[in-house]
């Protein structure tokens, strides 16, 4: 067929053909890319969807595992500990049981009868005293006093954990029985004060005081956890605290 003998010509043809090949392949590539750009996008998205779904399933399985308690024993222990600190478990141990009841004395004429009954302030003082004496768990009439419990006056009753309680009050505290009893009975202390108005108070030391669990799971509506590595001094803390009322 065609015969070109000169070496120079061969190289020229080689170069020209290379250019042609380059152009053809570039054109093909670009054309294919232009046509399939939307298809590629759809493919990418479906692949990512599959990945995300797989991740979700994995995490759901993990969560289920945690919920059913199939976790390492240390984690389980840690969780139990935290639950106990939060007051979510019933506790048992040495402690005192304090029973207080309204005064049975006859109200003297001209005296305020309110002074003869137990108020929220009295209970607050008792709880405060017990905590100062190192109480580890406190309950008033089967209402566990946690970090978020209120003790507050509502008419003739006292509100603890949004539950109305009436006299007589039974306050159970787990801790060192000796310390708690002495601090309650301090001269001029809480119980001394009660005696003055005839309010009955009995302290009983016990080796087996049972404190119930808080009935409600605490939840945060306003507060957000600040990661430990982000907390710097008090500025961040007070800012968040102010926002959370």
């Amino acid at each position, binding site marked *: 067929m065609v015969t*070109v003998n000169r070496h120079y010509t061969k190289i020229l043809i080689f170069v*020209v*053909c290379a250019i042609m090949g*380059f*152009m*053809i392949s*570039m*054109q093909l*590539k670009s054309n294919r890319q232009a046509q399939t750009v939307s298809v590629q996008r759809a493919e990418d998205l479906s692949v990512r969807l599959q990945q995300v779904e797989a991740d979700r399933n994995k995490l759901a399985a993990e969560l289920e595992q945690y919920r059913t308690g199939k976790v390492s024993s240390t984690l389980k222990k840690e969780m139990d500990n935290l639950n106990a600190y939060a007051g979510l478990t019933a506790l048992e141990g040495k402690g005192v049981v304090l029973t207080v009841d309204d005064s049975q004395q006859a109200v003297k004429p001209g005296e305020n009868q309110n002074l003869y009954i137990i108020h929220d302030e009295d209970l607050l003082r008792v709880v405060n005293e017990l905590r100062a004496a190192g109480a580890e768990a406190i309950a008033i009439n089967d209402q566990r006093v946690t970090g978020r419990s209120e003790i507050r006056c509502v008419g003739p009753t006292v509100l603890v954990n949004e539950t109305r309680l009436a006299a007589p009050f039974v306050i159970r505290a787990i801790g060192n029985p000796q310390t708690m009893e002495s601090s309650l009975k301090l001269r001029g202390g809480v119980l001394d004060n009660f005696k003055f108005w005839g309010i009955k108070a009995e302290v009983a030391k016990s080796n087996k005081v049972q404190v119930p669990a808080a009935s409600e799971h605490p939840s945060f509506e306003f507060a957000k956890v600040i990661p430990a590595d982000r907390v710097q001094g008090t500025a961040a803390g007070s800012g968040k605290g102010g926002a959370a009322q």
Partner: protein
Amino acid sequence: MIYVLLGLALGVALGIVTPGYIPKSYAPYFSVALMSGLDTVFGGLRAAMENRYENTVFLSGFFVNMLVAVFFCYAGTLLNIDFYLIVILVLGMRVFNNLAIIRRLYLEEKEKELERKEAEAGQDPNKL
């Protein structure tokens, strides 16, 4: 022939390896350039078969045609006329034209060869 195939293979490989794509706005220019290149190649092939192939003519044709085609195309976009369609049409016609001539020349060559062989075969008994 081996140079043609090698060159094409090298070019295609380069094109595949080269990252990136031709932007859509440049696609007409590129297609026109490609078409003019094809036209020149077929023209060169035809010239070679007619035994009047010239290096300078082929090479200058290849590049000048390409540039002119692209320029035409560019002028068309400036004037808001789809010149590149016309360029591609004309170049395509030329490619077909050249192909037809190449085919005819090839067939003629084959026929001549056949005739020669027949003549040789016919002569053979007489030679003895």
